C-alpha cells in the first residue's frame, strides 16, 4: 500500500505484470474509489459545463459521455476528466483524485450565474472498474440490461450487483470494460460479487502499478506527468478536444485560440532501443547533443510489447514519427525513436 493523493492505494496485489496481463487477456478489477465524482444538476447544467470545460457537454446525448478538460484562463490544464450526461439536466464529472477538490472549487465558481447546482459526492462514492476482454461476460449476470447494447463512452443510472449504480462503459486501460460508481456502503458488496463471479474466467484484482503500465501502453496521459497547468491541450496532443465551434464563451477560449498555432513543446511517444527503461524526469536529447531538449514524463518496460516505451515533451518541431532521439539513463545514452501513440491498440 502506498499513499496516493491522500488515499491509501495498493500498488499491486499478486504482481504488476500478472495483473497487467490479466487485463489484456481476461479481466482485472480495480478499486478506484479515490477518483472524484461531482454531480451538476439543474436546467442550466449543460450551459454551465459548456462554459466551464473546453469540450461541449451540452451536445452530449443523454446516456453518453466524453473525455474533457478543465483549463484556466491562460489555457493551462487544471485537470482532465470524463463528463457523463445522466439526464437532460443532470451530469456527473469525474476528475482525478489529486485534483478533485480544486476541480470542485473551480466548477462552483464557474457555475455562478447559471441555474445549476453542484454536489461533490467524492467522499461518499466508490468506483469499481472491471476492465478486459472478458468484462462483458463477467458483469452480465449482475445487471438487468443487455451489456452488448451499451456503447463505449456511455453512462447510465441503474442497478448493478443488487445496488444503485452509475454503470459506464469507460476505462483507463485501453481495453473494453465498465466502471461502476456506487455508494461507499455498497462498494465492498460490488467488489466481492464481481471478484467471485469472475474468478473462473481469469478475473483478478489489479493495483495502481498495472493501471499505470496499462494506460501508458494505451497512450493515455496522466495528470501531473503529461498534463499540468504549464501545458495546453494542443501541446499534449489533445487539441481535438477544444471546441471552438460551441457558441458561447468558455474559460480559456481566448488564450487557447492564441496558443493553438504556437505550441511551445509537443508530447511524443518513444520506443527505446535496448533493455533499459526511461523513467519520469530523465532528459531527452537530439542525437549526440550535449544539452537536453526535452524530458520524459512517463516510461516503463511494456509488458505487452516487450520493449521500453515512454512519453515525453520535446521541441514542437521534433515530434515527427520516425525521428531519432536519445534518452539519458543513468549517464548512458539510449537511442529512442518517435512512434505513434497509442503504443498498444486492442484488436476487437
Amino acid at each position, binding site marked *: 500500500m502506498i499513499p496516493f493523493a491522500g488515499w491509501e492505494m495498493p*500498488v*499491486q496485489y499478486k*504482481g*504488476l*505484470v500478472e495483473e*497487467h496481463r490479466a487485463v489484456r487477456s481476461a479481466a482485472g478489477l480495480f478499486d478506484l474509489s479515490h477518483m472524484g465524482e461531482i454531480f451538476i444538476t439543474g436546467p442550466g447544467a449543460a450551459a454551465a459545463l459548456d462554459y466551464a470545460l473546453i469540450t461541449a457537454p451540452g451536445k452530449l446525448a443523454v446516456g453518453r459521455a466524453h473525455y474533457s478538460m478543465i483549463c484556466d484562463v491562460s489555457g493551462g490544464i487544471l485537470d482532465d476528466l470524463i463528463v457523463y450526461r445522466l439526464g437532460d439536466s443532470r451530469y456527473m464529472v469525474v476528475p482525478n483524485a489529486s485534483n478533485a477538490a480544486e476541480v470542485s472549487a473551480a466548477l462552483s465558481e464557474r457555475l455562478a450565474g447559471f441555474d445549476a447546482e453542484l454536489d461533490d459526492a467524492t467522499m461518499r462514492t466508490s468506483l469499481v472498474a472491471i476492465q478486459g476482454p472478458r468484462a462483458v461476460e463477467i458483469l452480465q449476470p449482475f445487471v438487468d440490461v443487455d451489456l452488448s447494447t451499451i456503447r463505449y463512452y456511455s453512462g447510465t443510472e441503474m442497478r448493478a450487483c443488487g445496488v444503485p449504480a452509475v454503470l459506464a462503459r469507460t476505462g483507463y486501460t485501453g481495453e473494453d470494460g465498465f466502471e461502476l460508481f456506487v455508494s461507499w456502503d455498497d462498494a465492498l458488496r460490488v467488489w466481492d460479487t464481481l471478484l467471485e463471479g469472475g474468478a473462473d474466467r481469469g478475473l483478478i484484482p489489479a493495483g495502481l*502499478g498495472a493501471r499505470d*503500465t496499462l494506460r501508458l501502453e494505451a497512450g493515455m496521459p496522466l495528470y501531473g506527468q503529461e498534463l499540468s497547468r504549464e501545458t495546453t491541450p494542443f501541446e499534449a496532443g489533445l487539441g481535438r478536444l477544444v471546441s471552438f465551434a460551441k457558441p458561447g464563451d468558455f474559460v480559456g477560449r481566448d488564450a487557447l485560440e492564441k496558443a493553438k498555432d504556437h505550441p511551445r513543446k509537443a508530447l511524443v511517444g518513444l520506443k527505446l532501443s535496448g*533493455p*533499459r*527503461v526511461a*523513467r519520469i524526469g530523465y532528459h531527452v536529447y537530439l542525437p549526440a547533443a550535449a544539452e537536453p531538449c526535452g524530458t520524459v514524463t512517463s516510461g*516503463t*518496460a511494456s*509488458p505487452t510489447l516487450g520493449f521500453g516505451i515512454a512519453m515525453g515533451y520535446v521541441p514542437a518541431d521534433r515530434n515527427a514519427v520516425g525521428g531519432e532521439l536519445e534518452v539519458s539513463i*543513468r549517464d548512458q545514452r539510449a537511442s529512442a525513436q518517435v512512434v505513434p501513440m497509442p503504443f498498444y491498440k486492442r484488436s476487437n
Partner: protein
Amino acid sequence: MSTVPDELLYSEEHLWVEWTDDVVTVGLTDYAQKEMGDTVFVELPSLDEKFARLDVFGTIEAVKAVSELFSPIGGVVLATNPRLAKEPELLNTDPYGEGWLIRLRPSSLAERDELLGSAEYREHTGD
C-alpha cells in the same frame, strides 16, 4: 510470506550472502524480488572492480521502478552471473539459485559479523 534460507547471511538492504572461505556469493532476497516485481534488466559491475560496504555495485530495472544494489560487504568482483543479461527474470524465479548476482573476494573477514542471520532478517522485513 517470503523464503529466508537459514544457511545464508543477509544485509539490511535485502541482499543475501553465502560466505564460503574466500568467496562470497551475493544475490537478491525473495522478499526484495517480490517487492520489486518483474525484472527486465540487471546492470552488474566489471570483473576486478572494487567496492566498499554499501557502495552501489549495480541496478535492477523492474517494470515498476529502478532500484540500486548496495554491496553487503567490501570486496573485489570475481564473477558476475552471465545468465542475467539474457534472463533477468531469474531474479524472480530463482533468487537463491540461478538468479545470483555477483561473487566477491571479501576485503575484511570482520564484515561478516555486520550481516544479519535469517531470524534477524525476517524480523527486519516484518514479513
